[in-house]
């Protein structure tokens, strides 16, 4: 395989950030290893049926996106999730196995873009949204959001969330549900960006360890905490192509002028 040359994707301001974990009170607690009993999101944006029928992953997406209102109201949306509506899928197939029937409400909410659709209805935003999925959703989500932010004249709302995968799937056993959202790109009206996100594609050769998905909970907690504390950080976001991974550098303040021009 030809080595992948390093490539800077670009630098975009981060205007706001929010973090949620079912087992940690804050991003800081994730990094410090302090856990709390399972706590559901408050999902204040959701009412009625939307509150009753939505899954944990949708509620967590809406929770962190809600924390970025009102600045995020008209933002372009990039939602990212490795597993999507995996708990809804499990219930859907269990219903089908046990009763040969499928709940239409459950089926309707089983698509990967359920969170973005529910969010759009809850906020009345007609802004476009896309949904990135797969094992590298954390890296690919950041990449897609940054690329959109670099061409758009309004801010981009990047929301990343995943819920625990039910045991029947024989998949990842991470018991924590978590979400983080970042408002990046063009100014949403706020005067001062709290920080800058710079993304770089870094060669990592054929090292299988370097090409593995990263611990998304810790990576997101690290990014959100760095923004909150206005502290510089460099975070591996995981593989983005064979032999290369995406790295996120967070630093306090706006993008440097020469980088903003690039």
């Amino acid at each position, binding site marked *: *395989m*030809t080595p*992948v040359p390093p*490539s800077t*994707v*670009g630098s975009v301001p981060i205007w706001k950030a929010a973090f949620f974990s079912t087992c940690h009170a804050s991003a800081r607690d994730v990094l410090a290893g302090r856990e709390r009993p399972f706590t559901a999101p408050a999902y204040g944006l959701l009412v009625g049926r939307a509150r009753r029928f939505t899954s944990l992953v949708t509620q967590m997406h809406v929770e962190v996106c809600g924390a970025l209102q009102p600045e995020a109201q008209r933002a372009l949306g990039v939602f990212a999730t*490795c*597993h999507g509506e*995996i708990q809804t*899928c499990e219930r*859907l*197939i*269990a219903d*089908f*196995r046990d009763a*040969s*029937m*499928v*709940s*239409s409400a459950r*089926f*309707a*909410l089983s*698509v*990967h*873009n*359920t969170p*973005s*659709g*529910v969010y*759009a*209805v809850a906020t009345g*935003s*007609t*802004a*476009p*949204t*896309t*949904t*990135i*999925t*797969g*094992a*590298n959703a954390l890296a*690919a989500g950041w*990449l*897609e959001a940054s*690329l959109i932010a*670099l*061409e758009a004249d309004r801010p981009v709302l990047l929301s990343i969330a995943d819920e625990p995968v039910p045991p*029947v*799937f*024989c*998949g*990842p056993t991470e018991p924590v549900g978590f979400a983080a959202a970042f408002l990046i790109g063009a100014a949403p009206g706020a005067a001062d960006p709290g920080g800058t996100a710079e993304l770089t*594609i870094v060669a990592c050769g054929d090292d299988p360890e370097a090409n593995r998905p990263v611990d998304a909970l810790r990576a997101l907690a690290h990014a959100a905490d760095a923004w909150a504390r206005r502290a510089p950080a460099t975070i591996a976001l995981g593989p*983005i*192509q*064979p*032999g290369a991974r995406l790295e996120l550098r967070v630093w306090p303040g706006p993008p440097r002028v020469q980088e903003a021009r690039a």
Partner: protein
Amino acid sequence: MTTECAITAAALANCLGTDSRTVLDRAFAGDDAFSPASAFCELPFSTMLGVMPGIEAHRGLRATDRDRDVDALDCIPTRLAMAALPSVRQLRPAVRAAVDRWGAHRVAYVFASSTGGLEETERALAPDPRLPLASARYRYSDHAIDATSQAIARHLGADGVAIAISTACSSSFHALAAALRLIDRGLADAAVVGSADSLCRTTVFGFHGLGLTAPTATRPFARDRAGITLGVGSAYAVVERDAPDTRRRALAWVAGIGAASDAFHHTSPHPDGLGGQLCMRQALDRAGMSPDAIDCISAHGTGTKLNDAAEAAAVRQVFGRRVPLTATKSLTGHTLGSAGLTALVLTVESLRRQAIPATLRATPLDDALGVEVVDRRTAAELRHVLVNAFGFGGSNVSVVVSRPDTRPS
């Protein structure tokens, strides 16, 4: 998006056939390829399906009995992989040429699917006694879109940035937009945009539960239309950055893409097609075109009462005139995450043939919709065609596709 991008190769497979030539010839001949769902699975209701020929051919075969392409995919032969493979097989020479031209790590791979590997999971957790059990190798990654998409990227030798996108029935157009952004920002020179979706019983039951499946073959924009005919399919395209050599090989240009949300309801469209209006206007703006420049619309056209009415309302609002409109889901079935790219590949062929494929079974038309539905193959001067893909979550995307000779030299 500021960089011009050309579509330089395309392939598709669906109920009309597993090679592009057959699919396109049958589509433009107006062949009807749907079959009763009972041939596919046991259902307590009637509906038709568009099932890809041979989709089950590799079920239960030992690895040594499968063809080399299946094993070269290096993943479980899920129905998703089998749906993708015919298109992948056809596109491989063009991807190899793009790799030779630009370098493997400069060719991105963006894959789209709505249901991903749900069928494999259903076979593992809720098996149909008439079908072989899920592979003993079943693992979580086969449920997700990953295993298949990564295996295909490896198989094609596209070592560039890899992204998977899932936004229900607009998935493949969001994938196309992502691919163009990668090229626009210099992270790739070419991209393989692929989409595939396979059917499973959960999906068929789910659409039926929502009252969206038609008991007989779908009849988009007809007065007594009754719903969707679901289908299995895949569609792939190679898009490349503008260069003198690219211009010589261009089948068509992607002139503009627009996207918007309905912000109305998760599965029902905004009655005025608000999101559809917004994304069509944005696609036209980005193409630098007025609505008058569009010669034909390839509608999302699912054949449900509400979807067709909302899309027609949006078309009336944006165009203010009767533009010829065709609904190719009457030919291919609704291939979900692959629907947009399927319609786009048919549109590329429309531009080449200078002909609009028929919307089957559209008569008697629903005159109240006020749109100009093409109900038989029609010769036409086609320079620019607008293609729609709308989906659950109120996700709407439109793409303007242009004939190669329309781009300024």
